[in-house]
């Protein structure tokens, strides 16, 4: 039985931890994680994990278009915690993945944020910012994917991603300072995406992939995407992580 416990600390330079003021090295965000894993017979192996990421973003900005159709910049300061559960299951006949194998992988996320939201930090919007009030949001999301190698060098795969409608309490809207249409990105919707792929690996070092996606991550818009990837590796053979 494999068991791994760990903790990591890091800077706060990227989402969701952004802190523009403290652009330096230090303990500004942190995570705790645990992994367990084992084999089931000779053909199956798995790993499951849980992790928790905590940070205190300050003046984390994003752009939106308010009800007067003006591009405004809003910002959030407060606490942001993310809980992640992850799971991988691999199967190969006799544990020999060369010819046929299957891999299932999924992750579930829950992010909770609370603090203050500032509308229109530059004061260019119609109601005239900046306006600040309390904000809290809880949102979950997940993806699940399966990849099946049905013969040597050939694989098919399918992946589904989804974010749930966030459960929000926006002080600026709830107290009537702003209309919900002034903060359209924060209005609820459920982005989702379906992706299917077929790839062929002539050797360990190159891969050609056809990928089809139906992307519904923007409200009211469906993007149908076709990708052809050519992936190759140069230099030493990298080892296979689980």
């Amino acid at each position: 039985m494999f068991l791994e416990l760990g903790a990591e600390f890091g800077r706060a330079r990227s989402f969701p931890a952004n802190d523009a003021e403290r652009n330096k090295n230090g303990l500004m965000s942190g995570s705790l994680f645990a992994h367990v894993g084992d084999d089931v017979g000779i053909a199956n192996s798995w790993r499951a994990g849980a992790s928790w990421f905590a940070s205190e973003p300050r003046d984390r900005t994003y752009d939106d278009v308010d009800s007067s159709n003006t591009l405004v910049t809003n910002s959030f300061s407060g606490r942001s915690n993310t809980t992640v559960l992850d799971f991988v299951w691999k199967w190969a006949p006799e544990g020999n993945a060369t010819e046929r194998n299957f891999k299932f992988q999924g992750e579930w996320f829950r992010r909770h944020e609370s603090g203050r939201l500032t509308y229109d930090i530059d004061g260019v919007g119609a109601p005239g910012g900046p306006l600040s009030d309390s904000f809290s949001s809880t949102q979950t999301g997940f993806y699940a994917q399966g990849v099946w190698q049905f013969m040597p060098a050939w694989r098919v795969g399918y992946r589904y991603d989804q974010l749930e409608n966030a459960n929000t309490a926006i002080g600026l809207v709830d107290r009537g300072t702003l209309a919900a249409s002034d903060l359209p990105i924060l209005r609820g919707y459920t982005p989702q995406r379906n992706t299917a792929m077929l790839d062929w690996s002539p050797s360990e070092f190159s891969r050609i992939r056809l990928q089809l996606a139906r992307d519904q991550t923007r409200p009211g818009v469906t993007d149908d995407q076709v990708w052809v990837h050519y992936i190759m590796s140069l230099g030493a053979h990298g080892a296979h992580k689980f």
Partner: protein
Amino acid sequence: MKRALLILLALAAMPAAAALKVFATVPEWGALAQEIGGDQVQVFTATTALQDAHRIDAKPSLIARARSADLLLATGAELETGWLPVVQREAGNSRIQSGQAGYFEAARYVAMLDIPARLDRADGDVHAGGNPHIQPDPRNFLKVGEALVQRMKELDPVNAAGYDSRWRAFAERWRANLLRWEKAAAPLKGVAVITQHKAWTYLFDWLGMREVGTLEPKPGVEPTVAHLAQVRQQAASSHPRMVIRAAYNSARPAEWLSAEAKLPIVVLPFTVGGTPEAKDLTSLFDDTVARLLVPLK
């Protein structure tokens, strides 16, 4: 986010128990350590004869086993390069890191064959140190075992006498077996064969057989239809007597050639456990020689 600090708690890093814990990457070295160590060792073998040792993942179960190992027994010559470095790194076990006494590479103690004149990805999965499949030549077990028994004595001096006496008994039996196998395999000298993967160079060097083609167009590259057709054509002039594949190889390419060129297929165990008969090192070579002789009858 950049990692500023990473703390790993290796719960399994408990004091070594009485027996020397051996982590063998492939069955043949696990079997050899068992012959030398007897009940003074506890051997874990990471892969089976039905798995392709080039293509193993650094599974959680392997990392967990490597954490408590006293001796990591690998082939080396880049055979395990696809997974072992990750297992060593994730295991958090300083005893089995490369360069430590607890890390043993068998390929260092034998004369390597197929050392490439140039290293180029275009030549397929070639290894700078030479062909890493050293175990089909039983003479190599004497060289590897000689070095391994020294290493085991160094790591576990309390049991040195036991390792020595079991090794001497094994080596004596092995020399007698070598004479027996070489005598039985005498008709194989000069016989031309086609193989699936370039995994048998050391076997052919031992028995004087000739490899006149491989089903893989390049080492580690799966057989293609065009290449198989070419091998089929060559077979008409080079007159191979059989097509050889290892137990872990896919059956289909060899079956195709067998049907097209009217060649018998010989499935060799490749290592301990590859066939029902290959139960230990001695029966591995008993079975290998017996199976090679079948098409000559």
